[in-house]
């Protein structure tokens, strides 16, 4: 036991001597818990994200039970949920708590921290040729603030009055007044504190990503030689750093209104027969503050997925990504526009129609860079030589879902149509496809593609293909018919539709959707199983560059240590997309440009 530890220690020491990078001796604690190695921090984010995804997904299955089978009771639910499911029927209060937590968990904890946290941490130093992040300490703190946020949010599930239940958008006055909803009691305070911690984590991470990309690129790695993943993650960090503080301020003002008697969001309120003294606040102000983050948040989730899909599509088509500069330009355009469209979530709040018209124009303008990206992906596939690795399958699935969900955005962004479709299932279908499922596909693509680099082993391919086909078919079966419910004006966030003459005819469809959702959830568990099993027992990676990729991460050893490259960091001589150029299958970035090489 002790000799093992010593030999391990000397081994690590020898490795450190190799690249003269001084690190303290790594114990279990410094290696796996308070690690400052960007790769380990990435894995911490990923595993925490997966745990949250299971919880968030499970919540959706439980509330889909209620939506699919509103007449039935499930006595076993009471065994798990106690008084929240008395007699085996979910209480409306808890139904709304589940909906709220599902949204919060998936949007923030999984698709922001789990996605950006994982891949920005893992890929940035490896792909730009740096030994670690600009500040490994802040990087570590970023994870641990996220961890604290996770603990507080998780704790809020168990308070007596229930967790926050005003929707993930937590609009006041509902979220501000404990009298209005039991979820707006202590559960809401915990939600706000947890989100404050989460924002700190996101800012620490974001600042680090930006600094690292701007300052720590290896020799020859000019900005325009970076892989598109780097551009995507860079602008994601910029979006986060500029917009999350606005949510933080909004959340703090809400905390003040809740606990200190201020009136930022409250005015003219009679709640539960009580006349409140608050006057002069504006409930709409919160929506402006919230969506000033909330809309960029959509792109914080989407850009990493988009840019990983770009990279994976190019590698596995054995073709350069088509229109590299146009891709960078569209990411930039999306970043700018993301800040200027927030009020399209507020067309029916009584917004000044003239102001609304600007937001219509700017919102629909986003469709242009999005269209450029889609057509560039399609042209990348055109005349390629496509290898359907699991990563590639999910990248193609991402493009399909991005098209389907993106096009319905054109309906909702047009204010006159939004009047009819706002807050119906059409919106649910739209954002679940484009922001939820599509981003998950980008994330899965990334996990399947970089898993060999993360753990030196492969995921099981057969399980991966089952995972892909069931998930994409299931996602379309769940969300495609929801558009029709939306056309019928069926409102979202309803506990039961059976008393509504206008909506009750969708009972059968709701049951079908719930049934498919359960299958899709079960298949995600198959992925989780594959993931954890393969970390320890997967097929070992034998080649340094298993996908034949040009980017720098594949020039590191199969299991890179702290510091990434045992010797010198490679110098970069070209862009990362020289695939099938001059008859060569691929030319990695660290290969010098030959004299007779053609220009592009």
């Amino acid at each position: 036991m002790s000799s093992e530890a010593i030999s391990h220690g000397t081994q690590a020491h020898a490795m450190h001597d190799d690249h003269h990078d001084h690190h303290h001796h790594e114990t279990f604690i410094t290696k796996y818990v308070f690690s400052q190695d960007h790769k380990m921090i990435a894995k911490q984010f990923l595993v925490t994200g997966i745990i949250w995804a299971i919880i968030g997904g499970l919540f959706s299955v439980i509330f889909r039970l209620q939506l699919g089978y509103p007449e039935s009771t499930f006595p076993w639910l009471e065994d798990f949920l106690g008084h929240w499911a008395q007699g085996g029927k979910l209480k409306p209060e808890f139904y709304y708590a589940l909906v709220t937590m599902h949204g919060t968990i998936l949007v923030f904890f999984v698709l922001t921290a789990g996605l950006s946290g994982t891949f920005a941490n893992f890929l940035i130093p490896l792909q730009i040729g740096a030994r670690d992040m600009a500040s490994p300490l802040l990087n570590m703190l970023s994870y641990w603030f996220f961890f604290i946020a996770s603990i507080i949010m998780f704790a809020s599930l168990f308070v007596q009055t229930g967790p926050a239940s005003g929707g993930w958008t937590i609009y006041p006055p509902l979220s501000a007044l404990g009298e209005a909803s039991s979820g707006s009691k202590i559960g809401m305070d915990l939600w706000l504190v947890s989100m404050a911690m989460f924002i700190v984590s996101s800012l620490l991470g974001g600042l680090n990503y930006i600094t690292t990309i701007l300052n720590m690129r290896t020799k020859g790695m000019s900005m325009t030689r970076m892989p598109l993943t780097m551009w995507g993650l860079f602008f994601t960090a910029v979006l986060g750093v500029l917009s999350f503080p606005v949510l933080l301020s909004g959340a703090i003002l809400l905390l003040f209104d809740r606990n200190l008697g201020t009136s930022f969001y409250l005015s003219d309120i009679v709640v539960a027969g009580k006349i409140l003294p608050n006057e002069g606040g504006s409930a709409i102000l919160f929506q402006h503050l919230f969506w000033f983050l909330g809309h960029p948040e959509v792109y914080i989730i989407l850009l990493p997925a988009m840019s990983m899909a770009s990279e994976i599509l190019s590698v596995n088509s054995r073709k350069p990504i088509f229109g590299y500069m146009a891709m960078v330009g569209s990411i930039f355009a999306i970043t700018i526009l993301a800040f200027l469209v927030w009020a399209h979530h507020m067309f029916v709040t009584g917004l000044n129609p003239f102001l609304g018209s600007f937001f219509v124009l700017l919102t629909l303008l986003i469709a242009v860079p999005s269209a450029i990206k889609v057509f560039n992906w399609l042209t990348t596939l055109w005349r390629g030589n496509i290898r359907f690795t699991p990563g590639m399958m999910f990248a193609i699935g991402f493009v399909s879902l991005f098209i389907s969900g993106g096009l319905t955005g054109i309906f909702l962004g047009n204010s006159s149509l939004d009047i009819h479709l706002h807050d119906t299932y059409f919106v649910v279908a739209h954002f679940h496809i484009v922001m939820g499922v599509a981003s998950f596909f980008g994330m899965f693509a990334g996990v399947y593609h970089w898993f060999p680099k993360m753990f030196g082993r492969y995921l099981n391919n057969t399980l991966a293909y089952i995972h892909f086909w069931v998930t994409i078919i299931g996602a379309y079966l769940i969300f495609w018919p929801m558009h029709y419910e939306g056309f019928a004006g069926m409102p979202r966030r309803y506990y039961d539709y059976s008393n509504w003459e206008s909506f009750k005819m969708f009972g059968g469809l709701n049951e079908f959707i719930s049934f498919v959702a359960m299958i899709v959830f079960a298949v995600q568990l198959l992925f989780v199983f594959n993931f954890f099993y393969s970390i320890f027992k997967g097929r070992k990676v034998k080649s340094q560059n298993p996908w034949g990729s040009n980017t720098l991460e594949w020039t590191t050893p199969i299991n890179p240590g702290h510091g990434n490259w045992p010797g010198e960091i490679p110098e970069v001589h070209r862009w990362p997309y020289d695939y099938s150029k001059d008859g060569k299958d691929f030319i990695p970035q660290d290969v010098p440009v030959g004299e007779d090489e053609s220009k592009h």
Partner: protein
Amino acid sequence: MSDGLRLTIVLKHTIYSNNFIIMKAILLIAIVVIIFIVIFQIAKASEYVSILKGEENSRKQNNKINAFLMVVFLILGLLGAWWCNELYYGKTLFPQGSASVEGEKIDLMLYITIGVTGVVFLITQILLFWFSYKYQENDKRKAYFFPHDNRLELLWTTVPAIFLTVLVVFGLKYWFKMTGDAPKDAVVVEVTGHQFAWEFRYPGADKVLGKKNYKLYNQPAGNLLGVDFTDPASLDDIHVGTTMHIPVNRPCKMVINAQDVIHDVGLPHFRMKMDAVPGIPTTQWFTPKYTTEEMRVRTGNPNFVYEISCDQMCGASHFSMRAIIVVDTEEGYQKWLAEQKPQYFALFPDKAPKETVPDSTKTVALSTSK
């Protein structure tokens, strides 16, 4: 004694049923676990088979299978989309048409947008999956090095931009019409949302809604809306709950308030929707085309009613915050209106005029409407 006996029976029963449930749960979990293990073993076996067959060979075989499945998915997906439309188009609101004049424009915009996006959807999805199939890995072919082409980029920048401009222009034209001022002859109804019901107030014969102050809210006294009865305009205002009446073919302007949290007046049949925000009154207007009776014939549903759904999450009973709009003929509406008592008289019966007076207000109401 008998009580104790009954208790033990109940206890036994609950223990028995609990056991039964737990057994069922264990069985269910066991089945799921077994299915997982089976799938996993197959997956594991396929890995060994691939090693036996040679990894490269089995990779190529997988490639062919998945490329083929891409095309299958495309074809089944398009058929599925068509089938879904067959099943559910009839349940949307399109076949019955918009129940308001303004909503017709929204339906038209929807059709235009479905047309434009539908074409883009078909082109891009077909290309995506067809390319995936056609350009699957093939040893005989090399990928084509094609890094950029400015003409193509220009093409797919300008074409979407032109289509979007058209959509924006039409969209905004209708947007400004719908959010513009209501016509002068509109029937004005004040709609107030609170957890979890809707209240309606009509301005009465003077056509002016009396002032309100939320601090005057007084439930025991029946002043649920906080109406200021020192304002003379409020004396003839009519307050009704749950069911709202409006005449057909006359614009209806809603003045919308909320008392506690944000609600939303959702009118799917009229294609209208507007938030009810505490402290900030909002408005919306529309012109109903069909009476409730006419809609019952049009939809073939004898139970049809125009429903107001709360479309902004407002608390635990959000899903049951329902009200009904009765669209009546002009005569029917006037008759209904004449039967309503002003809220002031309802709250202060001693101030109510003598029996003969309601008749006179009735004639006043009728004459002003003409």
